[in-house]
Every structure is written in structure tokens, then in C-alpha cells.
């Protein structure tokens, strides 16, 4: 089984405050991992550090991605190499059209993969096709990035971008929050459609309902910057029923 991501003893801080306190985490091709954990436990921070958010400082540990040192790469190098983060809070970028933004993003990704660049016609066709994966209204892809999008539309737009870029490692940070019941099904089904034996998905979520659709091979609980328990999909069901207290008490 091909290894995609290996994290060993990862420590990270922001403004001198340590948030990640020794994370070990391994993802192989074809797998789905779920990361759960109480608010403020460091889930988004972990996703940001893997993505290379320059605001966080890595103070210890190693991360290898497809055998190379991920921490030596900057944000865009990681993205081009196939690391994708679906943001918990996607950013609105007034004046920048989705099409212009995605055209550059796709061009950089294809450059990295050594694929020929798309013609305008091919690109537009791809926009239309990938929009269908999450039933994203084509009017939205004609607008500025996330500007005036509803909460749910922003999340759909994240998965639309994932479909456009065909990443190898996707980290979906609470992509289910803000989605209505139908949208949740559509987005989750979309994510499943994008799964291949060669890529891997990490979903960060608070709720089992997403995991009903995107069934995880592993479930991890993050607490105070450490993974305190890993299990299979039954762990998520137990957490849904019983909350985190039993686990946290045990941890203390």
C-alpha cells in the first residue's frame, strides 16, 4: 500500500502558544481518515500546518508526503503536489472571478503533473463538468470567489475546487457544517466520487452524519493537540452517543 502522508511527533505553535503537541499520523493511498475532537482541540491547526499556513510555526517533528519532506515546501508547492485543504471558513475574494482563479490553479497543478495545458474551451468544459459533481450552480462559478455565496454554497465551492484540482491528499475541515440535509448528501456523494485507489481523504468533523456517507477506515480523536485515541468507524458512533467526557477523563 502506497504511503501518502507520515507525520511524526509534530509540534506547532502560533504566537508562541503551542497548539499541536506531538502528533503521529499515517495516511495510505485509498484510505479515509476522520479526525474528531472537541472545539479548540487543534483540528484546524493540524490541517493548516499540513497545508503550510505560514502563520504557524513548526517547532518539532517530521512530515513526509509521498516520500519527500513536506515541511521544506511552501504552501503553493504543497498544493501543486496535490495537497488540498477544504477550508472551514472559505475566504471571499471580491473582484477575483472563479474562472480566472481556477484557470491559474489548474494550470499550476497540471504544470506540476507534466500534463499539457488546457485550451479555454477545454477549461470551460471542465468547469461545467466538475460543477456537476457537487451540483454547484453554474451562476456561482461565474461570480467572484465566494463573494456573496451562502455558507453552504461556499462549502460546495470548496469541493468543486477539489474536483478541479484532483488532489492526492484532501483534508476537509468541517465541510459538512452549514450544509442542509440535501446539500450534505450532495457534497458527501461528490467527495466519494472523487475517491480513487491512489488518493486519500482526511475529514475533520463533529458529526456522524457525514461519516454515514464518507465511511472512514480510521477515526482519530484529537484533544489538546494530541491524538488520544484512534479506532475504526465504530469509534465515531460511540462518540456520537456518549460524547468525549469518558475519553477525556480516561486521558487525565
Amino acid at each position, binding site marked *: 500500500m502506497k504511503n501518502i502522508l507520515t507525520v511524526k511527533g509534530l509540534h506547532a505553535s502560533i504566537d508562541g502558544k503551542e497548539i499541536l503537541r506531538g502528533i503521529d499520523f499515517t495516511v495510505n493511498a485509498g484510505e479515509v481518515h476522520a479526525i474528531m475532537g472537541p472545539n479548540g482541540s487543534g483540528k484546524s491547526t493540524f490541517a493548516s500546518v499540513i497545508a503550510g499556513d505560514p502563520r504557524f510555526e513548526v517547532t518539532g517533528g517530521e512530515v513526509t508526503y509521498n516520500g519527500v519532506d513536506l515541511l521544506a515546501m511552501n*504552501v503553493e508547492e504543497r*498544493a501543486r503536489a496535490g495537497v*488540498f485543504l477544504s477550508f472551514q471558513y472559505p475566504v*471571499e475574494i471580491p473582484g*477575483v*472571478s472563479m474562472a480566472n482563479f481556477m484557470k491559474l*490553479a489548474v494550470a499550476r497543478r497540471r504544470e506540476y503533473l507534466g500534463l499539457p495545458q488546457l485550451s479555454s474551451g477545454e477549461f470551460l468544459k471542465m468547469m461545467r463538468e466538475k460543477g456537476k459533481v457537487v451540483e454547484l450552480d453554474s451562476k456561482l462559478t461565474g461570480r*467572484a*470567489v465566494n463573494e456573496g455565496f451562502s455558507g453552504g454554497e461556499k462549502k460546495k465551492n470548496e469541493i468543486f475546487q477539489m474536483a478541479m484540482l484532483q488532489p492526492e491528499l484532501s483534508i476537509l475541515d468541517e465541510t459538512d457544517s452549514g450544509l442542509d440535509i440535501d446539500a450534505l448528501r450532495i457534497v458527501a456523494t461528490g467527495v466519494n466520487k472523487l475517491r480513487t485507489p491512489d488518493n486519500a481523504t482526511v475529514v475533520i468533523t463533529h458529526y456522524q452524519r457525514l461519516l454515514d456517507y464518507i465511511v472512514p477506515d480510521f477515526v482519530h480523536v484529537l484533544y489538546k493537540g494530541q491524538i488520544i485515541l484512534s479506532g475504526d468507524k465504530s469509534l465515531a458512533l460511540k462518540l456520537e452517543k456518549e460524547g468525549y467526557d469518558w475519553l477525556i477523563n480516561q486521558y487525565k
Partner: protein
Amino acid sequence: MERASLLNDMFGTVVRICGGECRSPFGIMPSGIRVLSLGEAIRSGAVLVEAFGGLCADAEGVLIDIPAGYRAEGTVCITVEGDGGCDVAISAGDGSDAELVFLFDGNATCGRFVSVCHGASLRVREVFASAAGESVAVSCRARIDGEAFMDTVTVELGDGTAKLSYATALEGAMSKTVHSGLFMAGDGERKSVAVRVEHRVPDCHSDVTMKGVAAGDGFGAFDGMLYVARDAQHTEAYQQSRNLIMGGKARILTSPQLEIYADDVKCSHGATVGQMNDDAVYYMRQRGLSEAEARGLQLAGFVNDIIMRFEGGLAQRVLEAAEKKIDAMQRFVE
């Protein structure tokens, strides 16, 4: 800045003013627009200086006379280059409809005097493209008669200094002026734009949007004045100054002001000075764009709605010139 190429071989009617003198032949253009010596027109009495606010009796330069009822056939381009000063007077006759494109560069100093007569519609598009070390100064005065409309788009993307001032008086009821503009102060550059709009009579409409960008140690200034006379009831007037600062040493001063003496009016004004959004840059980098590309897209997103107001083939050329400027500016962020 490849400014000459901006207008080259594009348009049938080009009036070229170089070193303060008109280098194009005077006469009636194929389109029907008359291009005359301003000095001679004043001396012969063909032009009354009073018809143009602020025009001196000894003015020298070019008179562009758009006949009454004229219907736009293509665009008239006026290039003002080299060193030296010159006046350009424009008369848009009753009910005429025309578009003028100005290109300024070099150390040009120019006074522009516009009279938009009853029911006329005049579109003015202007690009300022002085090279580094050059300084362009243009002062524009316009008066607009009843039911007439002037629509101005200003794009300043030179690498030198620019000092632009506009004073527009709405003198006839139901007249309207719209002015959208953009100035870009790159490292080492100074740009200043002053826009004054006077509502002298009731039922007029004005809308001014000026955008500024400064990078490196660039400096920009916007002075806006919206004046509404006591009798000018039912005025609708808007003035907006929106600015983007890139980097810690860049500065833009903005001063939008209102002086309103009428009581039944709809007026608003506002100014913003913002920074590049770092979260947006990070977001775009996470999708594989370089930092420069992300900044460039954001800057382009800020300025494009102004540039898009150029029409036809010129739009593409201005866009390309603006992209070069944007590219140069986003390098000077720190």
C-alpha cells in the same frame, strides 16, 4: 511603458499634440468632427471663451467641435505627448453623441475645457502613461447643459508623476455626470487626483468613483468635493474613494468632502483605505497560485471594474498595460 502602442494603428481619427503643438492637420474629419486651431477660433469669434468656463482669451491649442446631432462613428483619439503645454477645448453640440479617447504621456501639461450642450452625450476615456521621471499635469473643466450627459473614465497607470484635476459643473436641469477613475502609485511615484462636481441647478445626477493603489513608497492623494447649490433640489450625488495600500511604506490620503446648501437631496460619500487581504493570498496559494499571482489577481480584481469601462479593442490594450503595471507593483509589497 509601451504607451505609443496603446493607440497606434487603431483608429481612423487621431489628433496628435506633441510638445504643446498640434501636429495633425486642422479641418473637418471624415467623421464630421471639426478639429480647429483654438487660438484662431477665439480670435475669429467662432468660439466664445465664455462658453467654456475658465478658458482664457489668449489660449492656444486645439478646438474639437462636435456638430449638433452628431452620432458617434468610431472614436476620436487625442494624444498629448512630449514636453510643453496646450489647451484643448471640446464642444459637444446639441443632441450630439460622441466618444473621445485621450492618451497623455511625457511631461504634458494640458488644460481641457469641455462644453456639453443641451441633450448631448459625451464619453471621455483617458489613459495617463508617463514614463519614470516624467510628470504629467492635466486640469479639466467641464460644464454640462440641460439633459446632457458626460461619462468620464480615467486610468492613470504611468510610472512617473501625475497631477490631475477635474471640475465639472452641472448647469442645466436633468444633466448628469459619471466619473470613474483609477490611479496607481508604484514605488517612487506620486499621483494626485482632485475631483470637484458642482450641482448648480435642480434635478441633476452625479456619480464619482475614484480608486487608488499605492505600493512600495508610492504616494497617492484624492481630493473630492461635492458642491450642491441652494437651489439644486432633487440632486442625486454620490462620491466614493476606494483605496488599496500594498506594503507598509505606501500611502494614500483621501479627502472626500461635501458642501450641500439644498435640503431635498440624495447624497452620499465615502472613503476606504484597505490592505491586501493576506487570508485571500493564503487561500489562493493553497490552490497552487504563487504569492505574486495571488497578489496580482487581487489587485486586478480591485482595478478591473474601472478598466472594463473601456470598450472595444482599446479595452484589451489598456488591460494589458494595466497588467504590466500591476505586475510591477505587486513586487513592491514589502
